[in-house]
């Protein structure tokens, strides 16, 4: 298992104003799998991802990522763990506007002070198909291109797991497809483990497995095709 969560709860606030975002979640993510997490707004899917990625700390329960219990780590160790073991893809791309596409891709390696594994980086660049635009800055790239750069950045340091937070949320359907196909390839060709939070059932359809959350609990866990259209939340999602 790359990531294992056991008895995960997360509450915000105290006393009467307490909100339980996660009410006891047990979930495992095996290596090389592409998992989509879905659920309506407030279902706790983002909270779950933040806890799995070591961006937030659970109220109770445990997360083991690549063999490390996150609860034992201080801020410094968590930062190092995120740097070396985790890749991130954000809804709003979050590329640094002052760096070129290539520099953005290499950013995690630069931060770690590591030499780039050039053949690997070359494969990534070919995979995202932006070799001719490497010198451009994000402002000169389309949204889809920016998100493809972000995908390459997430994979650059060969992380144990990539977390993607609504990766198609800011994209139109054509570029969404491009990005999802790219993510699928990363899983198929490179054996990358990906955990993706999404609202978009079409995006979720690219995953191997769909975990559905409602009110802070997992209500369904299985193949994505079976789930579509059967859940109450799905109607909500389509409605948006």
């Amino acid at each position: 298992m790359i990531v294992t969560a056991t008895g995960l709860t997360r509450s915000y606030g105290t006393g009467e104003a307490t909100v339980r975002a996660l009410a006891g979640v047990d979930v495992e993510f095996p290596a090389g799998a592409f998992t989509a997490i879905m659920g309506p707004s407030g279902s706790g899917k983002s909270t779950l991802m933040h806890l799995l990625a070591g961006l937030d700390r659970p109220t109770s329960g445990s997360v083991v990522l690549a063999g490390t219990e996150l609860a034992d780590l201080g801020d410094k160790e968590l930062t190092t763990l995120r740097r070396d073991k985790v890749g991130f893809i954000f809804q709003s791309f979050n590329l640094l506007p002052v760096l070129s596409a290539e520099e953005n891709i290499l950013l995690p390696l630069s931060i770690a002070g590591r030499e780039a594994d050039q053949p690997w980086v070359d494969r990534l660049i070919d995979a995202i198909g932006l070799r001719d635009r490497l010198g451009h800055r994000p402002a000169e790239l389309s949204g889809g291109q920016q998100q493809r750069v972000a995908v390459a950045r997430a994979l650059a340091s060969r992380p144990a797991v990539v977390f993607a937070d609504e990766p198609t949320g800011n994209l139109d359907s054509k570029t969404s497809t491009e990005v999802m196909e790219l993510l699928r390839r990363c899983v198929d060709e490179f054996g990358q483990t990906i955990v993706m939070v999404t609202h978009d059932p079409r995006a979720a359809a690219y995953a191997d497995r769909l975990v559905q959350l409602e009110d802070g609990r997992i209500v369904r866990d299985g193949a994505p095709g079976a789930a579509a259209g059967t859940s109450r939340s799905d109607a909500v999602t389509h409605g948006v």
Partner: protein
Amino acid sequence: MRRVALRGLLARKTRLALTALAVALGVTLISGTYVFTDTIDASFDRIFSAAYKGADVVITPNDDVALSESSDDLPPIEGAVLDRIERIEGVENVEGSIFDQGGTFLTKKGEPFAAQGPKFVASAFDDERFGGFSYAEGRRPRTPDEVAIDKATARREGFSVGDSFEIQAEAPKQAYTISGLTQVAGVDSYGGAAVAQLTLPEAQRVTGKQGKYDEIDLAVAKGQDADAVSAAIRAALPKNVDVRTGAAEAADRTGEISDDLGFLQTGLLAFAGVSLFVGAFIIFNTFSITVAQRAREFALLRTLGASRPQVLRAVLGEGVVLGVLGSVVGLGLGILVASGLRALFKAFGFELPSTGTVLEPRTVYVSLGVGVVVTLAACLTPALRATRVPPVAALREGVALPASRSSRLAFPLALVLTGLGVAAMSVGLFAGLEESPALLLVGLGAGATFLGVALLSPRLVGPIASVIGRPIEALFGVTGRLARENTVRQPGRTAVTAAALMIGVALVTFATIFAAGGKSTIDAAIDAGLRGQAVLQNQDGFSPFAAGATRRVAELDGVERVAAVRFVQARVEGEGLAVSGVDTEAFPALYRTALPPLGDDSVAVSEDYAEQQGIRVGDTVALTTATAKRLELRVAGIVEDKGRLLDELTVSNDVVARDFGQRKDSLVIVGYSPGKATKAAIDNAIKADFPQVEALTAEEFKDDAAGQVDQLLVLVYALLTLTVIVAMFGIVNTLVLSVTERTRELGMLRAIGTSRRQIRRVIRYEAVITAQIGGVLGILLGLLLALLVTRTIDDFSLAIPYGLLLGLFLAAGAAGILAAVLPARRASRLNVLEALAYE
């Protein structure tokens, strides 16, 4: 709309505090200067009022001829004048007194006082109505071996009644027993001066004024009209004395001090103006950034129906609140700074009196007025930009403000402004204008140049940042790279931030180069002129000293000759002019200059003055001396003086003694064969009796001069510190705003594994690069200023202190590091999740 403006301010407290502080610091020095000088003024007013309260009429030597405003070293009044007054009807009591500046007092260890303040040897009055002194402890001196000193001096130097106190003035050093400690108007100190009272005959003897007086005070008999008696006295006395009522004399003295203070006040206000100017940059920058960040907010207001004037008023309203807030804080800080200034001057040996802090209404008006006006002026352009946000921007994300006409014109405007600035400075410096319009032109020109370069600098930020940033990037990798890129992201913002620091750095550079050049010029002048082996001077470095010391040295075995130089003043065609007296026999042998033989009625004229006035050899120069004598002197020669020792006019010392009433020496050149006499022997000859005088070899003389230049330089540095601090607040402010703007970026960086330390580094290096851009521009501008200004000084040997300038560049970087502390901490402590969700 008013509420919107207030909300806008309160929502961002850090920024509000930092910007208000920029205003406040500018205002601080203004209010501090006023409080400081008003307080001194009031103290002297109090002292002089007390001193002349009991005197109906005061007779003093005429001070029309004195070049300096101070009337302290005027030739004394002849004793016969007193006799004549006694015979005038209506005079009840009359008393002559001594109040002589130029003595030296010794500490308990036998060293001259370290404090630079004036030292007066005075006589104690018999009539208690005169002089204004009272005895806080003990009593007045009654015998020739007694002295009363002011209580402040006694406390500072650790003397008490019964102790021995040594004085050296015209007469050799002598010890007295302290009989009492004085106060004036209930204050321990006589305006920061040290005053030693002796009996009248002893004071006359010590100061070499036997049978003469510095001042004559009188009381008129009951029932007599002081003005009428005063008029009668005026009619009976010669022209070289002034006759005034006690009140008029007090007002005159206070006026003299006010004039002196006016100079100090102008100087300090100039520094205050610079701080405020720098503060304006910061206000401008803060408003520009926040208006850009709040573009959507303004657009929303416009969509909801707010008019452009309403938006303008909302932003200007923020400016007013900020200006008032900052000015009030500045006013308050100024009162603290006034004491700080006093401490600063005291640290440099100038103790100034303070009897209670004086806050004039004028100080309040000016501080508030200037603070608010400057703030409004600085936020006008950003406010106008805010009005140009189109309402539709509310619906779009990441709107950029439309480029304004003014921003397109900025570059040509900057060039024109810089050109005009340099031109104005050049005209001011080289066109030979009167002093005050010239200074004004230079000041305005410098201001315009600063502004012009600041406007130009957005174009310079990129190139400079890439040069300065390279080594940082090479050393620190990606954090350095991000820092460098961040500085050039908003070149205008970085430019203004850097320009604020640039001004301080430019002035520090200018002062540094000027001082270094001054020192090497002095060195060169001493090398060019001095042929003697040693010089004698007052240990304070500038005052004249007892000629007895010179005679003592002249009599020493092995000393071949001594040449005394005396500096006096005269009035030529209504203008004050400096006159040097020289020993006609010894001087040419000890000083390299082609001085013509000078007789009793001849004068030598400096090359510059002769050229300026069109004077030729054989002409006659008519002048009036301090003793009100009119002299007509024949020009015996025009002197080229590479050593810069001699004044516009040079006469023989015999003429100085006879017609100018000056018997003290200002500088003495001593010639001896190194085998036969030594400097140590000279020291020994004068040490016991004339501790006031020190002997220096040529090298020591240079070091001494350099020390004086350095002392002045440190004072200038201290005053410029405030400007640099304001600029540092500017860096803090810009960084805090940039950090806010880049919150999501920082969140992403943290999420993908950037450590807090790395985040701090990015911010810190950005600050360093910004500060060093200011440093580079400032050093270059300072160099330009120094080159321009020193061109106007003849034979100025420009010595550029490269090491110091490099140090200054590094210091600018250090200032950046310091300024980055708070923003870096903020950036590194951002909550990653909140930062990622930030819009």
